[in-house]
């Protein structure tokens, strides 16, 4: 699974940067074509939902998805053959 922010829905309130326990969301720098500064993802492969959602069969933490007032955050299936990044934390 892959973490994505829907740029069409996001309004740039940065609430996700506050709640993520892994600090995956960083306040963005550049406005997109709608003039909204969408948060950037900092190594989203660290998110437990990306790795373990399919294994457990349920959403694990999901704080960012729940607090997002614009329903912009979701996890999507990766396309077959897509390159996966693996993050190891010490």
């Amino acid at each position, binding site marked *: 699974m892959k973490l994505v922010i829907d740029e*069409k*829905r996001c309004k740039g309130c940065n*609430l996700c940067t506050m709640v993520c326990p892994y600090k995956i969301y960083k306040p963005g720098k550049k406005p997109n074509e709608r003039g909204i500064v969408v948060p950037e993802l900092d190594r989203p492969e660290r998110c437990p939902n990306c790795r373990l959602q399919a294994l457990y069969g349920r959403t694990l933490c999901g704080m960012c998805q*729940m607090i997002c*007032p614009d329903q912009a955050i979701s996890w999507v299936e990766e396309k077959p053959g897509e390159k996966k990044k693996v993050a190891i934390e010490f």
Partner: protein
Amino acid sequence: MTFSDWLRADRLPHIFCAGCGNGTVINCTLNAVDQAGLEKEETVFVSGIGCSSRAPGYIVTDSLHTTHGRALAFATGIKMANPALSVVVFTGDGDLAAIGGNHFIHACRRNIDLTVVCMNNMIYGMTGGQGSPTTPRMALSTTTPYGSAEPAFDLCELAIAAGANYVSRWTSYHVKELTRAILAGLRTPGLSFIEAMVQCPTNFGRRNRYRQPLDQVEYFKTHGMLVEKVRRLQEEGQEIPPETIVLGELARRNRPAMGVKT
């Protein structure tokens, strides 16, 4: 099924301002409705007028967008006509406490089997930031430019006094707890009242030193206190810090209820 299946994807993005907590409360409510295992055909969302009352327009189920303050009156009619339906009422503080105040206390008195989710943003957001009955003391708004001189309504105390079966209060920061509270409310027969404190960065925050949405959510995070801790502090005779928001399940009881699904 997840809560996103309950949203009308073609209507999104919604009209709420950036950082408005109403969207969070919609997420939590839909998540609770989803977890309760309700059918889309057997659930009705009712709302009055205001920012919060735009919510049923983004949900796929049958919904009613009614006159100002009369959401509970319409919901009572739905429930009495067909008790098999699960009725969830979205309402704001101005809708519920000011214009619909009488409907609210009488719905609590009758103890009709509704779930009332009140998004309390402490101001009339949609009409330009007028002071509402829940505007805290000394808070600035367009009608109270020197600070609100009146004490604010405590909606949960009001619901308990009027006789609601389940009363709890959470904020838009406590998403998991809010989901759990709405789920408990859906499962409790009788009127369940869940007050969700939400941030209003455009009209409340801008005038009251919370210019960013994060500032007011941070305030909810730091000033929220569980009701168990508040009661313990009161028993020990200690002082409760000012501006504390009492959170948690404030009442759960078994008064006789009307319109319960059989």
